């Protein structure tokens, strides 16, 4: 507590002068947004490594069902991989925890936590977040929930295994599967804490963006990153509490004998008491978060890529206002489309048709965004930094994955494809690859700002090309597996003659998955090496316009040594006619006869 109190004093006097801080206040219970951002990033990278390894484990089983792999035995032990063969319950736990970690801990906590924290104060010209203390609390709650989620992997009955959506009654009844016991309890507790973390973070982002913009930083001069983080935070604040309610009701059903989600159940040789609940209720609550969650994951990545593509095309982002408009439209629509996850749930078909309509509308703002990216590249002067490569990759995966969404949004077509590998392929490309590409782009681009050093770009190139080949190599074939009718979350397909044909595809997918996973070793080595030994960064390495590049390389508590910078123009004045340089930072005043844009 002393440490917290001390740090609070530091925040209060808004450090114009850089005081000596203790190790604890600087690196552990830091209230500085830059340090918290790094804490989020490192934690998320660790979680991502775990989740990626889990995926490789179950990919081995899917490609070579029932075969023995010593690596499985090595990591999972005799209990979960006796003789190196993956246990069928553990298979489900691996799938579940992979999904949970990737969606929530890496792409929600990791992505927003890292880049909203780093960039919001730096790009709007603020000394720190509105509340440094809440920000610190947000990270530590995230950390605790990460620990709990990881610890659930070591529970004797196994980690939660009902899929990352944990539909009751399967998740509500320990009789239904062993992993619905303590493993599921830990999952729920971890998620409740995670939601608290996410809410504290989001509220802070919103308040900071609305209140702490520096002089001249009108909403219409904000970089698109900030717009994306802003809408993301609003989505989080409006939707995560609903998941909290869903989780809380499930906890009550599990341990207090209520029946929100349970009715007419006969299991384990006896009829259970609960009557009158509805499993469908849970699905409505879950997906009311679950769909906005897709955009909570995606929008920050789109914001990051907008910024990087503009900077490295040396050209303004095309249609700045249209980009903001489409972010707003996507954000709004994301709240009225959740039912498209439930076409086959037994929900009234008429309600289904309403969701078909609203879901397909999202294609319009998405198309606008995609075309605007491409027009930004057109007649640009493109410099391929690793960040730029990942941003271009993001546009490709956003388009390729988004298109198959048109099929899944159509309830009539969803009948055949619902819960097959087609769905898995679709959301992994549009949400998984896109968001992780956005995250990589952000790391390469803002690494100099975070650590004051540069990452090795050649390693970055190799990392990108292997990752995109691996990514598409995994998920293109997966569409075919889905169109063969193969359901997801199956331990093996050998019991069905009709799935003999997909065996080869599954092998191809696994090879590419191993390639993609191996490529991440390059990234990890580059990342950690560069933190300590990378080449020292200059102040504005990418010749960028935004405010974060006007801060000194060495981190200051309070960001700018003197007065806060004043903003005079939008952030995308690249290659403006009549200017000598191909960039004009936001702090440069307009010439007396110059139009803003």
């Amino acid at each position, binding site marked *: 507590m002393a440490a917290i109190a001390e740090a609070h004093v530091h925040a209060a006097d808004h450090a114009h002068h850089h005081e000596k801080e203790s190790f604890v206040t600087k690196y552990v219970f830091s209230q500085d947004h830059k340090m918290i951002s790094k804490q989020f990033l490192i934690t998320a990278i660790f979680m991502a490594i775990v989740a990626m390894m889990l995926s490789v484990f179950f990919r081995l089983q899917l490609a070579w069902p029932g075969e023995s792999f010593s690596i499985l035995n090595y990591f999972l032990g005799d209990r979960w991989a006796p003789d190196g063969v993956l246990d069928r319950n553990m298979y*489900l736990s691996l799938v579940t925890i992979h999904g949970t970690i990737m969606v929530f801990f890496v792409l929600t906590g990791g992505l927003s936590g890292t880049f909203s924290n780093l960039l919001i104060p730096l790009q709007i010209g603020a000394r720190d977040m509105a509340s440094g203390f809440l920000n610190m609390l947000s990270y530590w709650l995230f950390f605790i929930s990460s620990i709990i989620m990881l610890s659930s992997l070591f529970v004797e009955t196994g980690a939660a295994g009902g899929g990352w959506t944990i539909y009751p009654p*399967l998740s509500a009844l320990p009789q*239904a599967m062993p992993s619905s016991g303590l493993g599921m309890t830990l999952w729920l507790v971890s998620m409740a804490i995670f939601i608290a973390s996410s809410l504290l973070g989001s509220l802070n982002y919103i308040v900071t963006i609305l209140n702490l913009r520096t002089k001249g930083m009108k909403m219409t001069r904000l970089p698109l990153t900030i717009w994306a983080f802003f809408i993301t935070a609003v989505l989080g604040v409006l939707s995560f509490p609903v998941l909290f309610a869903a989780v809380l009701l499930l906890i009550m059903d599990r341990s207090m004998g209520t029946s929100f989600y*349970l*009715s007419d*159940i*006969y299991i384990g040789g006896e*009829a259970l*008491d609960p009557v009158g*609940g509805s499993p469908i209720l849970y699905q409505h609550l879950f997906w009311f978060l679950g769909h906005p969650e897709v955009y909570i994951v995606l929008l920050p990545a789109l914001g990051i890529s907008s910024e990087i593509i503009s900077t490295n095309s*040396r*050209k*303004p982002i*095309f*249609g700045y206002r*249209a980009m903001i408009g489409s972010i707003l439209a996507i954000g709004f629509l994301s709240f009225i489309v959740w039912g498209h996850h439930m076409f*086959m*749930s*037994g929900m009234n*078909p008429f309600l*289904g*048709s309403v969701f*078909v*309509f609203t879901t*397909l509308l999202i*294609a*319009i703002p998405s198309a606008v965004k*995609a*075309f605007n990216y491409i027009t930004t590249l057109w007649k*640009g*002067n*493109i410099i*391929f930094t690793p960040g730029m490569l990942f941003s*271009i990759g993001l546009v490709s995966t956003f388009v390729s994955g988004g*298109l198959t969404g048109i*099929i899944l949004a159509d309830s*009539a*077509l969803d*009948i*055949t494809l619902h*819960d097959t590998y087609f769905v898995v392929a679709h959301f992994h490309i549009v949400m998984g690859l896109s968001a992780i590409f956005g995250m990589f782009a952000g790391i390469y681009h803002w690494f100099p700002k975070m650590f004051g050093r540069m990452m*090795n770009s*050649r*390693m970055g*190139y190799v990392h990108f*090309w292997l990752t995109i080949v691996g990514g598409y190599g995994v998920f*293109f074939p997966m569409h075919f597996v889905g169109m063969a*009718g193969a*359901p997801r979350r199956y331990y093996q*397909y050998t019991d*069905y*003659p*009709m799935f003999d044909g997909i065996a*080869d595809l599954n092998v191809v997918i696994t090879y590419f998955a191993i390639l993609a996973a191996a490529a991440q070793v390059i990234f*990890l*080595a580059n990342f950690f*090496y560069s933190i300590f*030994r990378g080449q020292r960064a200059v102040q504005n390495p990418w010749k960028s316009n935004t405010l974060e590049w006007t801060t000194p390389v060495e981190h200051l508590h309070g960001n700018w040594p003197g007065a806060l910078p004043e903003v005079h123009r939008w952030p995308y004045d690249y*290659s*403006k006619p009549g200017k000598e340089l191909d960039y004009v930072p936001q702090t440069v005043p307009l010439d007396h006869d110059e139009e803003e844009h």
Partner: protein
Amino acid sequence: MMEKLFIVLIVVLAVVAVAQIIRLSKVSSVLSKKREEDFSPIANKVNSNLMIYFVVFMFAFLIWHMVAFDNVLLPVAASEHGVKVDNLLNFNWWIIFTVFFVVNFLLFFFARRYRYDPNRKAYYLAHNNTLELIWTIIPSIVLVVIIIWGLLTWIDITDEPGEDALVIELYAKQFDWTARYSGTDNTLGDVNFTLITAENPLGVITADGIEVKLKELDEEIEKAEMSIRNEVLPESRVKELEDRIGMRRRQKSKVLNYRDSGRDFQTAYDDVLVKGEMHIPVGKEVNFQIRARDVIHSAFMPHFRAQMNAVPGMNTQFTFTPTITTDSMRVIVEDANFNFILLCNKVCGSAHFNMQMDIIVDSEADYAKWIAEQKTFVQAEPVRAELKEKVEVEGTIAVN
């Protein structure tokens, strides 16, 4: 153990190797006084060319899959609405492939075409409302077509089944399916989960089923009460037993309600329960009533383009008309062992991956022959056989 060490060693070596390569490239760039943020014409050229190689690889990879794995995809739809679904899907594919190829090509092509040239300045183009309008309106028009066509198909599929549709229940539990045919009256008997016993796995309500269940409940309550009275038990165990007694009493009162309702539950007597393999007649509309006993399952019949979740506590349904018999389909797919199949498509526990039932589509005549051979619910159990006789003799059964 050696293997474990070996794995760790490989991972460590890989990390070290990459770190060494970075160091090497750093040293070489220091020697040439090149800094990371400096523009490198060679790197830019290589990456921009790779853009083209990649997009070619990506298209080739996809097209190769379409050719090589065409035969693993689901065969032609074996139901009336399935053909419509496939037509709609193909229409969607045309649009999607067009956009996919054009947009991805433009993206990677522009990236290559407009790579950095120090003698050129990028074209300062901040916005253009005409362009924005074009790519708002064109997708909107295409989507209107997709939405209308899609909704018409959906409304058609989910339309109320006809009066004479064959009613079959699909009952899911961990980890198998039971099909219940509604018999000559084409009406399924009533069910309730409290009446489930080993002999009555679906909880079909019959007068004798009620008696059997009441007896079972009474025995259980009595046994628990005996334990509390006669045994020395820890308090927690006593509490547990008391809870159980309360639960069974509540269930008993529910069962008594059925007994006292004055209904005869006769629609259940001619129901037919089958497992492992079910038959349906070709060309006849089949209305599947779908239920689950324990957790959510999903009745997935991919060849018929049919799917619907089975949800505990509620009834769901799906109706389709099979158009191809199993025999004809075997000819079409050139596989003498082909069978239509019912799968579980909602994760339901450890054996979820093997929860299946074969579906045989018969000609009308074959189906009539098959169903006549099946034992009805009442015939299947000796206890109920007496009941059956009684029914046949008296024409009705007295309740109470």
